[in-house]
């Protein structure tokens, strides 16, 4: 039996279809645009221009968050430290997120009048909890940085 020409034609169609399919695919995990990412190496929290918490190289080198039960702190602002130790706050595409905090003890609030890097802490009940902040990249929906768990004390 000879190899038939019609079969050759039949095979060309699926193979070329396969080729077009292969050539047309892009990696589903690739970022679709030229996104700029920030990679801080530390964080400073300031209240009324006074440094209250400092984090460097993943370690809390000084401070903690404190609030009186039933009261709310003044604005606390988050500054990030770059590789050279300079303070910065991303201008676009980033926001501040936090987790871990036990809201029965204390809660964090932001309102629309504030910058995205400021918040107030309210004490709901005497005790201790922890909070971890994230530098959240809104476009890619990933955290580019997170702090260690920072102690929060409600007196």
């Amino acid at each position, binding site marked *: 039996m000879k190899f038939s020409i019609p079969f050759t034609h039949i095979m060309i169609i699926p193979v070329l279809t396969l080729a077009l399919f292969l050539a047309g695919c892009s990696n589903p995990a690739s970022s679709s645009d030229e996104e700029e990412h920030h990679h801080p190496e530390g964080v400073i929290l300031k209240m009324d221009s006074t440094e209250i918490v400092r984090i460097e190289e993943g370690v809390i080198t000084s401070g903690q968050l404190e609030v009186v039960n039933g009261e709310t702190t003044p604005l606390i602002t988050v500054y990030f430290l770059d590789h050279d130790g300079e303070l910065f706050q991303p201008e676009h595409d980033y926001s501040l997120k936090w987790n871990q905090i036990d809201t029965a003890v204390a809660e964090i609030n932001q309102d629309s009048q504030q910058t995205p890097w400021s918040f107030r802490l309210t004490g709901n009940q005497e005790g201790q909890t922890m909070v971890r902040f994230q530098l959240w990249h809104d476009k890619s929906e*990933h955290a580019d940085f997170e702090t260690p768990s920072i102690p929060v004390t409600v007196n």
Partner: protein
Amino acid sequence: MRYITLFLSISITLVFSSPAHAQADRNRGTIKGQTIDRETEDPLGFVYLYLEELDRAITAHGDGAFTFNNIPAGEYTLSASRIGYQSVTQVITVNSNETTALTLSLRPSVLNAQAVEVIGTADHASSANLEHASKTIKGADLRQNLGTTLSSTMEEMPGISSRSMGSAPARPIIRGLGGERLLILQDGERTGDVSSQSADHAVTVDPMAAEEIEIARGPAALEYGANAIGGVINVVRNQISPTLPDHLHGTASLEGQSVNTGGVAAVNAGIPLGSSLALNFDGNLRSAQNLKTPEGSLQNSDIFSTNNSVGLSSIHPWGYAGLAGSMYLTNYGIPPDPAGGHEHGVNIEVRKYQTEGRAEITLDNPVFKSVQANLSYKNYYHRELEEDGQIGTEYGLLTTNAKVAVRHQRWGFLEQGKIGFWGEAKDYAVDGTQTPGSDAYSLASFAIEEKNIGALHLEVGARFELSRATPEEQYESSIGRIRERTFYGLATSASAIYDIGSGFFTGATFMHSFRPPSQEELYSEGPHLASYSYEVGNPDLNPERGLGKELFICYKSSSATAEVGVYHNSFNGYIYPRNTGQQSARFPSLNVYQFSGVDARFRGIEFSSQVSFWDHWALTGSMSYTHAQREIETAGWQPLPMIPPLQAHINLKYASGGFHLGGKITIADRQDRTGDFETPTSGYTVAGLFGQYRFESARLLHTISLNADNIFNTTYRNHLSRIKELMPEPARNISILYRMYF
């Protein structure tokens, strides 16, 4: 990559349309036979027949009749295996324009499929029975050991352990070697997933789809990679059928397990369409809840998956050509680890789509027997989700593989072998980390040859591989200069096996492996929540070179098999992620794992045996031990992490007619030779029971397998589990599997 894939596809098209393969059907013959039960001489149906040199397989009809058509004249090795019977291997000669008639009689046996009876001359027996480094799990053994993962299905074989992280993510380890040193294939194709790089990544092969599982080491492994010093595991699924079935055949299966309230349903079938087309399809659906352990439920260890494929092949006297498509979808959980970085666990969603084409053309040539071409493409994606649905990390890998190989018969000094070319293009991307996207291209040529000199069987293989990793951009980063890297090297292997006589064989295998660093080992930088790690690559890594040596002696007869072997594998630049014990500055809840290349050595011993006695009883035992170290400049030779302890399996089975019943014990020693920041594990003994019953009705073969694992509900910990500190291994489990062959 587009140009490469287009080029490869058009090349395949040209191969198909080339007049060179338009072979006349002269010089071809037919094998027509009958399989019978040797004791009763009744016809024996559902026998799996495999023609080794042509890689063609068929299943005998219910009445035992079978036919191989269009076989080029020559000498072939035909093997026949069937549930409850001892496998038979016979050398046959096919003459031009003639029908070779034969009757294969299979002897009922209590032994497993590893016991092979060889029919033929002494010379032929040597080559057919002495593939020392090859092992197969199929039939009753496969059903008895069938687990949720490929790894758990294989872990009772000597030298094989399971690296795991909950129910779904598990990968086999052979003689302490895993990751990139152990290739996992499906129908001879790389899986195209990222399971080799991290413990939380699942292997995208469901054991329920396997017709059989093959394991190969030594020269044969070089067809698939220069890095497979640990071996090659090939899951045979037969998506593209090389033979035309003459009737609808397949299996339907249902399985349930108590330890995770899980179940799986599966079907696979092959059917002829007209006179030259074969359609194969299979599918399965698996669902399981959280795993139960003696200390409670393992939270977030559920799994849901489906794995489906369809293949169409056109079979002609000149050979066959076919296309197949498959998809693998799974969602599974990684248990929470409050101390390890995620207190709520991580959910992983995986999807993989695969297309492949394959053709084999038999040649009427005194030297070259056939030419085979493969092209496959895999589109893999997975994302890791935190409890609140936020995406932690995403992985994408697009892999294109192509291979062209020629089989030859006697050619001067060489008796038979395979020569080929192989290429791979990988597009790798990770989102959620600083790891840059990158492409990797590999090209290889290989040759594997066999020769019999009297009672001596020789195999040699060589593979030259060129590999290039290209990041999307080149820049200075905190882990070093991200840049293009090119690697090339030669991997070689030789195996010599000598037939001492009276059933005894001895031999040695050497392998010199070459493994370029992978893209993730070169460029990774970022958090990987599900594996509790912050991964840091090293763009300056050099290729890993391994030298493996193995000596063994074995005995095989129709009533007993035994084998003992010792091995020594040494590595220059053994690449592994070292736990530095330091917190990441950017993600302090995660420890930094730094990819490093160090000198390492693995030494070990393996023993396995099987003996039948009093007609109906079989005792099987195996033992394996690996001693692994790496060299640290400041501390000398220190233990490597994640190395299995001394382990033994003992299995006693009674078989009569369609029944078999048995008990099994697994014994493991403590492992206190631990790597950095690794927890030692205690020794344990775990017992289980199993039973199977098979019967035939209306031309259907039915099997029911019942297993009871960890019957005493023992609390024990697998040293290779990444969550061994959280929870022990599964509690008592009752599983039942019904499978119907049609």
